[in-house]
């Protein structure tokens, strides 16, 4: 069978893969994009960012309706139609998936549905519905992503033990739900199921939920979880699971004490693993790191001269926007430009209630690395805007280099923090100083003012909060 020859193959149509395919096509390359799912968009669109955010919106409607009584608005108990909610969520995914496919078509990117397998560095076999096809290419960008890890001990073949992929389809609202892992996926899905009415026990092996975020930002979310969940157990491990009729028998262990319980469903959110098995990687010169991710350099090149890798499969933080940036770098390299990944920060957003977002340095990191910073905090209790929508459980803080006044980090917790962090990202990438933030007029009344006011806190003259002068001043 004759191989199809093209300039560039992109393997995987997630937010990294399709971004790479489109950019390469825009730069004049002949591109074939390969995807095994029926819908383009990868985990992000199909079983990650997008569906979770749709469900979180529904959850927010429920909790806001419950909490509006003291504003003088009282609703009845919400009626939840799971089929309708699922259909609404899926309609969003269909719309976005079709959008990606249409953008591919307009650019002349050929989409090949099937599973790719490396015959060697220069040849890819694709198993399509119409049989095998072979592709040869100048370069290939591997963007096959990652999937939820399910440790062997939990993998009983019982559908009541779910990963995020299953949980996002809301098969039902379990009365008793155990969530294993207090990272952002566990916390976000916990928020959804709690709003839908599940009694949730969340188990986290570490002494803090949402590892990586500064403790002061996590605090409001922890307060929410303690209220909305039945229990949050820190420093606790799940030692075993077993099927027990229509329930799962779970043994947890904390402080050497074992506890046996029964749950209707269990959601396992203990991390993600790269999708690089059954890919024929061993037929190429690509090497993998100890965790199985493909090794790449700052130009996204693997150790095989024909193969680049981006996104989750290339390791690092597993976030769609990181993959999209790497896609740009990889395509520029493919086009002969000398491009490297040189962004200072990859922002992080956790869509809990309230949201947490940060970029640049965190306080924890500054301490670990011995970087001296001055932290300026502006609590949302002092924000008029936060009061008007009844959510003052927020905080905006800046990490500033005391010598040059350069902005090194921004951390925000509060309603809509994810939408606010973009300004912090731009400021850090631009090498802005606290003065730059303070001097830029921010619109009133908005939450964006909290960034400006936090910068003013640094200089000791924020309008809406009073800072006691230091003794020497």
């Amino acid at each position: 069978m004759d191989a199809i020859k093209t300039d560039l193959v992109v393997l995987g149509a997630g937010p990294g893969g399709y971004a790479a395919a489109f950019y390469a096509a825009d730069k004049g390359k002949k591109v074939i994009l390969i995807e095994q799912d029926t819908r383009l968009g990868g985990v992000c669109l199909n079983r990650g960012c997008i569906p979770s955010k749709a469900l979180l919106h529904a959850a927010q409607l429920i909790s806001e309706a419950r909490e509006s009584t003291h504003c003088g608005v009282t609703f009845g108990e919400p009626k939840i139609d799971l089929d309708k909610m699922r259909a609404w969520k899926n309609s969003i995914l269909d719309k976005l998936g079709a959008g990606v496919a249409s953008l591919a078509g307009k650019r002349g990117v050929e989409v090949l549905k099937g599973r790719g397998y490396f015959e060697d560095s220069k040849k890819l076999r694709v198993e399509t519905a119409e049989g095998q096809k072979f592709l040869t290419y100048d370069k290939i960008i591997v963007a096959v992503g990652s999937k939820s890890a399910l440790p062997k001990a939990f993998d009983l073949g019982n559908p009541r033990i779910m990963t995020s992929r299953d949980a996002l389809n809301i098969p039902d609202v379990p009365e008793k739900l155990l969530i294993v892992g207090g990272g952002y996926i566990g916390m976000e899905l916990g928020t959804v199921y709690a709003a839908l009415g599940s009694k949730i026990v969340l188990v986290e092996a570490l002494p803090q939920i949402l590892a990586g975020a500064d403790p002061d930002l996590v605090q409001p979310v922890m307060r929410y979880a303690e209220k909305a969940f039945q229990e949050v157990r820190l420093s606790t491990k799940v030692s075993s699971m077993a099927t027990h009729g229509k329930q799962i028998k779970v043994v947890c262990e904390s402080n050497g004490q074992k506890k046996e319980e029964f749950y209707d469903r269990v959601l396992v959110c203990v991390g993600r693993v790269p999708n690089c098995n059954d890919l024929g990687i061993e037929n190429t010169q690509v090497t993998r790191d100890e965790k199985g991710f493909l090794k790449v350099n700052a130009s996204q090149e693997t150790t095989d001269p024909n193969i680049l890798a981006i996104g989750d499969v290339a390791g690092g933080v597993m976030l769609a926007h990181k993959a999209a940036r790497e896609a740009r770098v990889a395509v520029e390299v493919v086009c002969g430009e000398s491009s490297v990944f040189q962004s200072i920060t990859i922002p992080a957003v956790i869509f809990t209630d309230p949201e947490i977002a940060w970029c640049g340095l965190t306080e924890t990191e500054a301490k670990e690395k011995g970087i001296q910073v001055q932290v300026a905090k502006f609590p949302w209790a002092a924000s008029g805007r936060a009061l008007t929508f009844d959510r003052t459980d927020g905080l905006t803080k800046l990490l500033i280099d005391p010598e040059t006044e350069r902005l090194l980090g921004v951390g925000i917790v509060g309603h809509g923090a994810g939408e606010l962090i973009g300004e912090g990202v731009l400021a850090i990438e631009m090498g802005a100083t606290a003065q730059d933030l303070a001097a830029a007029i921010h619109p009133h009344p908005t939450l964006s003012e909290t960034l400006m006011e936090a910068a003013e806190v640094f200089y000791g003259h924020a309008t809406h909060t009073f800072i006691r002068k230091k003794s020497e001043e």
Partner: protein
Amino acid sequence: MDVRLPKLGEGADSGVVVNILVKEGDSVQKDQPVLELETEKAVGSIPSSAAGTVTAVRVKVGEKISAGQVIFSIAESADDAGHFVEAAVPAARRTRPLIPVNPAAGTAAATSKTIPGFPPPASPSVRKMARDLGIDLTRVSGSGHGGRIMLEDVRAHIEKLQAMADGGAGATETAPRPVERIDFSQWGPIYMKPLTPLRQTIARRLSDSWRTVPRVTQFDEADITTLNELRKKYAKAYESKGARLTLTSFALKAVVATLKKHPLFNASLDEAAGEIVFKEYYHLGVAVDTEHGLIVPVLRNADKKSLFELSKELEELAARARDRKVTAEDLKGGTFTISNQGGIGSGPFTPILNTPEVAILGIGRGALKPVVRDGKIEARLMMPLGLSYDHRVIDGGSAARFMVDLVAAFEQFKEADAKI
């Protein structure tokens, strides 16, 4: 292990060491710049291909070194993580064009404070530009608040380095007296534009030419009435095959024919060896006026090409020069240069030699002039020519004879040579 000079890319394979950034006993990181090298085209920083402690530096400032040559030896450090990354990156990409830093600048303390994990404060676009140009932003002093580096700061840095390089590079020459800075604003309003790297290269090369070569210009005129008819006659045919038939194409042909009769004009002077180097190839430089400045790409083996081939190649070369797509290779190896100002509508003029070539032809605008032929005054299309030559190699008589033959080559251009 030995660290060798990587292949520099862009066709450059050797250069002069301008600055050594490490010394014996220093520990170097992989990719840390260790050397600054001036090639014909630019100056680049050479990164170390390995990490470790320098045990011996094998090159000296001012030494000419070639790709593959050992530049220094190091004792490799145990921390060799990420070595594969090095292997995966093509060598050419690791060599970055840079403007040199002389030792004085090299020792200057970093101007912006370094914070682990953070590059110097500058916008992503400035950081990208610095990377593309191979400029180390930690050495650039930022004028913004908190030492933020603006585009202008990078420009100023490049100018400073260039000035230093110009002052330090030509050690064998008597350094030109520093020119006193004059405040022109005392007599009226002024504004400034920074010198581009290209302009600085032009300035340096032409100053060298002016200082080293005793140059004489020989003038004459060629009657191109017939030639112009010929051009008009064949222009359409050329155009239909995708080439523009211009006077410069004819000039290439006429010059090659004349050079063949006068090999001295296709030679170079090797003062060190006390020899004149005659070249048996004819690579003609053609001066192209671009919006960025003068560029002289070289059209190779002009003697082996038909008028049609020359026309076509000339057009492509000029287009690439205007788009700044010529490579360093395109600018090398010329044996004689033609500069035609006729298209702009001026001339005659005295061109300056494109060293190490020994002669250059400047062509002015052809104009109708009253000429006495067979006792009658006729309007003829006359084209002014100026031939500048290196009087160290070429005598006045030779130049006059060259000119006579060149004028004849224009005036008696064979129609057969114009046919496609």
